[in-house]
């Protein structure tokens, strides 16, 4: 099972090798709003609200917590 996982990971990485851009093609990706962590404070606030009101948490990063609200 572990060997299969490793094999799948290698295959996925090989697959990724053909996807992507050259370093000088990163003009759009370099824009601040293209970062996946553009608004860490908004994301933390949302995670905290949804953690308090729903039975799911985390996904984007480590699961929410540190609160007696759930």
């Amino acid at each position, binding site marked *: 099972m572990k060997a299969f996982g490793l094999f799948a990971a290698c295959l996925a990485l090989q697959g990724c090798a053909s996807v992507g851009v050259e370093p000088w093609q990163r003009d*759009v990706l370099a824009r601040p709003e293209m970062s996946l962590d553009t608004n*860490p*404070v908004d994301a933390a606030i949302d995670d905290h609200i949804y953690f308090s*009101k729903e039975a799911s948490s985390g*996904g984007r990063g480590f699961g929410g917590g540190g609160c007696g609200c759930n």
Partner: protein
Amino acid sequence: MSDDNNVSATLAAATCALLGASAAAPVMAEEAERWSFDTALLYYGESDDRVQDVSATIGAQRAFEDERLLNLTLTADTLTGASASGAIATDTPQTFTSPSGRAVYTTPAGKAPLDDTFLDTRFALNVGWSQPLARLYTLSAGLGFSTEYDYTHLGANVSLARDFNKRNTTVTAGLAYSEDDIDPVGGAPLPLSQMLDVGDQSNKRTSDSKDVIDVLLGVTQVLSRNTLLRVNYSYSQSSGYLNDPYKILSVVDGVTGDAILRTPAPGVLGPTGVYLYEGRPDSRAKHSLYAEMKHAFGAPVLYGSYRFMTDDWGIDSNTTEVRLRWPVGDTSYVEPQLRYYMQSQADFYHPSLVQGAALPAYASADFRLGEFDAVTLGLKFGHRTMGGNEWSARVEYYQQSGTIDRDQLIGNQFAREQVPDLKAVIAQFGYRFGL
């Protein structure tokens, strides 16, 4: 000919990029070694005088040489209002002993019982550090601490990321551990024990604790010049005291579905019905698969995310979120947002328990463990000032609509609203600046 032109153009762009980068490098290094701040003031308010929260957050980031980063986040929350207790609505007023065990509160006839003794102030501090380890590796580590009147959290996390394929692929592995102490108002009730009269604390323990281990594996992939994808798998294992110490279940008649009435001891105040404190399993394992993508359509940027979660309590959930950041002029943007969430109920979710029937091993009537859908509609406006700072305002509307399986309702319960919709407004003002 056209190929030659393309090659020349590419080479020219590459040369410019390299020259630009080397020329800009000293300036960037100088600018990078500064503090930048991201602050937010938040109001969260539920309808019908339920939970109200005012919260302030200050995030500070300090960049050092060699791409080393320090992150600090401080949050203060003030919560007031009423929270659903889990007891069913009935045709007569219901009286409950408050969590402190020193007083009672009464819910009017026909209303889902709300515990209005809810009041808390919370402070949270998170510290994070990240730095390159070798040319392609980045190490991140963090510590978190939060404190409330009845709850203390201590957590630590570490993660390692490695870039592949000209930094088009980043693989991340992370581990987090937290230890939380719960010291409920009036003590932690024994699971499935009965709510007692004022002054009788014989079914309460002083405090309890839980710990959580999280493992996260992620891949971030550049798909094209304007598209970025991230996929995370995470596993979370919680053990210890996982109950909400303030949540209860009504014990009802098996035919009418009405609450079983009781009379407090002579001369003492106490509950007028039979209510049991909830009892959840003492461990929970969650698996989540999360994917998010950003795509630039010229200037506008579309964000989409999806999460599937499943756990060994029998809860499955699906979450989808879409945001579109649309520039307005050169310095502003608007960002509409739509989120849809749905979850199935926990195996041990019971709207009520039947008198005389064998007690289940675990039971909770907490609406958050029931089946519901939730929608968030939001709009954000942001504006960059002449000085390069940015302010933003965000307004959101959140609504939960619960469903109780008809097999779980009894007699007169069908005629009463057992899961009132939760409606909340979220307003946030943010300001980002550098020093």
